[in-house]
């Protein structure tokens, strides 16, 4: 018989405990070696304070150690995260807020006599409309004699990518994929423009840090005294620097899409009306993925109906704008994510299963593919059959928009490349999709020439 306890493959680094799954529920075990620190964390009042401020994921305490592990002390049942996401799928301001959240936790911990021992974006997840810290075992008793143990980790996994995105391009969040444990300081120092050497805080935390780490590598680290005041100065300096960093303001190809689309004879309004009607006929839909969400007009429509919606787009500016809107309006049911359908994030880490691929994580009730079929089929040459097959692995229900070849937007794409797409027709589309889905509804969007389909996966 197989073991009903499945240890999470990404939870192996920290001896204080680990995440495991039992009967489809995720638990966190606290090990005996961390008992004292964990009890202090709870009794000091830090846990309550952080949970009340919605900075830390709440948990229920289950007294017994349900794994039967002899090292186990306690089992915790954390609130469920809907969709696990990683820093390479976040926009600039998401990573910036995650960094500021980490610094805030480090600062608050000190006030309660604890210290934050980990500073990685992997400990932060999207929960109920905001980023929240999830690792309950990251707080240990503060020893005033030691500097911040997570300092280098913070600089490499938050500060380095933020600086690179600030001074270069937003798309450099993809560097997280090459270095999931943080972009090495020596690499960051080389990639940053020379002028950053003359900015005090960047010089100290990146350039000087890289230089000294290199020089002293291999020498044993002597006990150094590091007062609380110095610790707080360090945090304040990082905070000052990060608050100053801004999204590069170059408008991308897609950031003005809706301004233009809205002017097309009520096209957006008609589309909204059709989809709203279909959704109201299917109240069983609880989760959805809006692929090619742009700035999330249709994701917002889904979230208004309390459908947990993943607003996915490959354009980091669109996702960043959507994130700002979600933050401003405190929207709960929508999660912004950077996702390129022609290249979804891969599975990485130890045994290739430490961080799951995007597709493995993406299981929803409905997938919505609006006004991007031509980009995928013509722009990226992906055959209808492959698209249909992919969508059928994600969700049992599909809302998809077909854009005919005569459409001005398709003509625009075809003006840039050779027309090798003789199979791009509505008949071929319906036929190829019929191998995976059956049509429930089909409706033309006014006079736009475009058609919306509502489909159900075969064998459902």
């Amino acid at each position, binding site marked *: 018989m197989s073991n009903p306890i499945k240890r999470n493959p990404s939870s192996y680094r920290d001896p204080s405990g680990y995440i495991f799954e039992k009967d489809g529920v995720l638990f966190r075990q606290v090990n005996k070696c961390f008992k004292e620190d964990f009890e202090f964390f709870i009794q000091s009042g830090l846990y309550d304070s952080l949970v009340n401020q919605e900075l830390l994921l709440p948990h229920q305490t289950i007294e017994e150690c349900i794994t039967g592990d002899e090292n186990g002390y306690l089992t915790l049942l954390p609130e469920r995260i809907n969709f696990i996401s990683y820093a390479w799928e976040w926009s600039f301001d998401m990573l910036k807020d995650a960094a500021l959240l980490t610094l805030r936790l480090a600062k608050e911990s000190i006030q309660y006599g604890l210290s934050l021992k980990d500073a990685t974006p992997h400990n932060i997840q999207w929960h109920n409309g905001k980023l929240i810290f999830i690792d309950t075992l990251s707080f240990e008793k503060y020893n005033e004699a030691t500097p911040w143990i997570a300092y280098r980790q913070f600089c490499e996994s938050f500060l380095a990518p933020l600086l690179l995105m600030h001074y270069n391009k937003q798309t450099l969040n993809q560097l997280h994929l090459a270095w999931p444990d943080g972009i090495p300081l020596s690499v960051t120092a080389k990639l940053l423009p020379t002028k950053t050497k003359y900015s005090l805080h960047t010089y100290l935390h990146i350039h000087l840090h890289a230089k000294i*780490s290199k020089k002293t590598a*291999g020498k044993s680290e002597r006990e150094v005294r590091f007062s609380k005041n110095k610790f707080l100065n360090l945090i304040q300096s990082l905070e000052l620097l990060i608050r100053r960093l801004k999204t590069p303001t170059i408008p991308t190809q897609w950031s003005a899409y809706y301004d233009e689309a809205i002017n097309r004879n009520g096209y957006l309004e008609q589309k909204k009306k059709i989809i709203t009607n279909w959704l109201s006929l299917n109240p069983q839909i609880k989760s959805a993925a809006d692929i090619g969400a742009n700035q999330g007009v249709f994701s917002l429509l889904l979230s208004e109906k309390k459908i947990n919606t993943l607003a996915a787009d490959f354009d980091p500016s669109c996702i960043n704008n959507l994130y700002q809107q979600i933050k401003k309006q405190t929207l709960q049911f929508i999660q912004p994510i950077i996702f390129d359908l022609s290249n979804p994030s891969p599975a990485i880490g130890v045994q290739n299963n430490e961080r799951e691929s995007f597709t493995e994580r993406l299981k929803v009730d409905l997938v919505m593919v609006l006004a991007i079929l031509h980009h995928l089929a013509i722009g990226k040459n992906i055959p209808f059959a492959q698209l249909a097959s992919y969508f059928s692995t994600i969700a049992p229900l599909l809302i998809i928009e077909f854009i005919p070849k005569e459409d001005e937007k398709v003509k625009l794409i075809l003006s840039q490349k050779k027309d090798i797409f003789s199979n791009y027709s509505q008949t071929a589309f319906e036929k190829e999709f019929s191998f995976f889905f059956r049509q429930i509804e089909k409706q033309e969007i006014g006079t736009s020439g475009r058609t919306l389909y509502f489909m159900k996966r075969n064998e459902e």
Partner: protein
Amino acid sequence: MLHHLLYIDPGSGSYLVQVLVAAVLGVAFFFRNIKNAVIAFFTRNRNKQDDNTKA
């Protein structure tokens, strides 16, 4: 690359750098605080918070 470096955690050295950084920051913040106190004397409403967390 020197061979023995392959066996060393690349993070070593970060304690020493923190001591140096903290020393520089101690001086920098000392003057910054004076500057801020002067500015605060003449103006109000500084230090806006704009992250994802409540004030």
